[in-house]
């Protein structure tokens, strides 16, 4: 498979995967995986399509979470994470790895906010329990059936 093809299919997968599988490392050194909202899923979150289309690095990943969650605790000690997107029926998957950042910039947080999220962050956008994470991935691995293609996301 050509690199360009793998990149194109990876972007498609990011826009259709039902969840983003986030893996952090806990204080004992074990990986911990859980499903998160895939904010790039066009069907589930059409509100954010424009934001993602305007990114300089088309593979940037944003994840919202509670500041009080265990994953926030993990990444404070160890920012190494990976995020996996997949289409289980077609045996297609893509994984991105790198160091995650906590975004404090309110302008960005405002762009990644929906009113119904008060269900998770009672006090709204300004709730100190609302955390926005960003991964500018350093590496990517695309899997399709028995093939595996590695690439550097964001590099031409």
């Amino acid at each position, binding site marked *: 498979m050509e690199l360009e093809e793998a990149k194109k299919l990876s972007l498609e997968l990011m826009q259709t995967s039902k969840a983003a599988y986030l893996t952090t490392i806990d204080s004992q050194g074990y990986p911990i995986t859980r499903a998160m909202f895939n904010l790039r899923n066009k069907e589930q979150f059409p509100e954010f399509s424009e934001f993602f289309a305007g990114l300089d690095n088309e593979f940037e990943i944003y994840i919202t979470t509670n500041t009080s969650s265990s994953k926030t605790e993990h990444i404070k000690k160890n920012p190494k994470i990976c995020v996996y997107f997949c289409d289980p029926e077609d045996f297609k998957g893509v994984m991105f790895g790198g160091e995650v950042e906590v975004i404090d910039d309110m302008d960005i947080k405002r762009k990644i906010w929906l009113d119904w999220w008060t269900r998770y962050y009672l006090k709204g956008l300004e709730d100190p329990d609302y955390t926005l994470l960003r991964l500018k991935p350093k590496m990517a691995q695309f*899997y399709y059936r028995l093939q595996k293609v590695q690439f550097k996301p964001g590099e031409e």
Partner: protein
Amino acid sequence: MELSEVKELSVELIENSLLAYFSTINSDGFPITRALLNTRYKERYPEFSNFYDKQNDKYVLYFSTNTSSSKIKHIKENPKVSVYFCDPENFKGVLFGGDIEIVEDMDIKREFWLDSSKRYYPKGLEDPDYTILRFKPKSGRFYYKLQQIQFEV
């Protein structure tokens, strides 16, 4: 949610998931996740249910993989892994953590050998590229909507 219910739902999720999300840690200390076929998925692998029914540990999981794969390299250096099953539509998931082992026992390797395995291991059951992994989880974490329940396995 009661612990007994959590355990029951966890086993249900294991037995009804096509894939298991398998995470290892690479030599640079980054987690690496990929989907693997779940040998406990009853609909796809009825051949293995008898074997699993006979096990004492109801959370034990076996995976087949290529000896030459990156995950084998990772686990030889660091056996700490996690295995995650989920039903994204219902916001339900279960995560197991523990140390994984490479199984050398030919009887077990034979249990997990299928005719279709030749596609991955052309030399057959004795192919040195055929590896079976056994995972006896130490801890479990069940996620349902906004709840998270930890349990000992």
